[in-house]
């Protein structure tokens, strides 16, 4: 794992948390959309907070796909779940919401999970069985001979 790869994982976490928060903030300004006026949801993207939220969620998708190109799914999913912790910390220290003991315990469990998974290897190395015959060394090519 290089510093660049940790930056990509941080990008997954931060873009998802910030994108979701901005989307929620913007949708609160737009108001609830009823089933009878569904097209209103398309106009919701004109709200600057919703538009910015969507932009950040596109950033999340790009960094998530980048992380999946060099790490296992079972590595990326827990490693990027620090976003839940980030959201709880934003709620406590920026929005001054009350964070209960249960939630602090949840934060502790997620942090432990992230710590566990990031200590291990990021990618499963499969045996090179997909290598074409002509690329294999001479030992392999003699296998077919009588």
């Amino acid at each position, binding site marked *: 794992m290089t510093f660049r790869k940790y930056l990509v994982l941080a990008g997954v976490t931060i873009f998802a948390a910030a994108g979701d928060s901005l989307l929620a903030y913007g949708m609160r300004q737009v108001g609830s959309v009823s089933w009878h006026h569904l097209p209103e949801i398309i106009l919701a993207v004109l709200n600057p907070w919703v538009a910015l939220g969507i932009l950040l969620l596109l950033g999340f998708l790009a960094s998530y796909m980048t992380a999946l190109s060099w790490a296992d799914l079972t590595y990326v999913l827990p490693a990027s779940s620090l976003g839940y912790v980030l959201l709880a910390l934003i709620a406590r220290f920026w929005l001054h919401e009350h964070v209960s003991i249960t939630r602090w315990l*949840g934060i502790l469990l997620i942090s432990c999970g*992230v710590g566990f998974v990031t200590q291990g290897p990021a990618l499963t190395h499969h045996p090179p069985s997909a290598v074409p015959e002509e690329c294999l060394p001479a030992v392999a090519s003699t296998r077919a001979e009588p």
Partner: protein
Amino acid sequence: MKHVYTWSAIGLIVLASTAGDVLLSRAMKQIGDVGELRRRSGLLRVVGGVLRHPSFLLGVLAMTVAFYSLLFGLSWGDVSLVAPASASLTFVASAVAAQVFLHERVDHRRWLAAVLVASGVLLLAG
């Protein structure tokens, strides 16, 4: 009856998100490390290759199904049940699916991480 609808929606969200994650992961593994590919052939070719990959398109379709199931789930059940239950079950389901379909080596460390994160998410919403 509303209870059945809510849990059906949660089941569908978990199934669709897990399928989406597995398909996106498969697409990106087949394409390769995008950092190296970008240096070799440029950003536009990498983005074009990703957008045309069948597993990527199917993955996005599955994610869309998950998103709309979440919307329906939220209209039937409480947000404090639907959101955390589906998110935490998805962590565990993804670990099983990654082992079966992507042949990832999910050792004790990764199982423990998936279960810890899933439990943490449940507690955060509590």
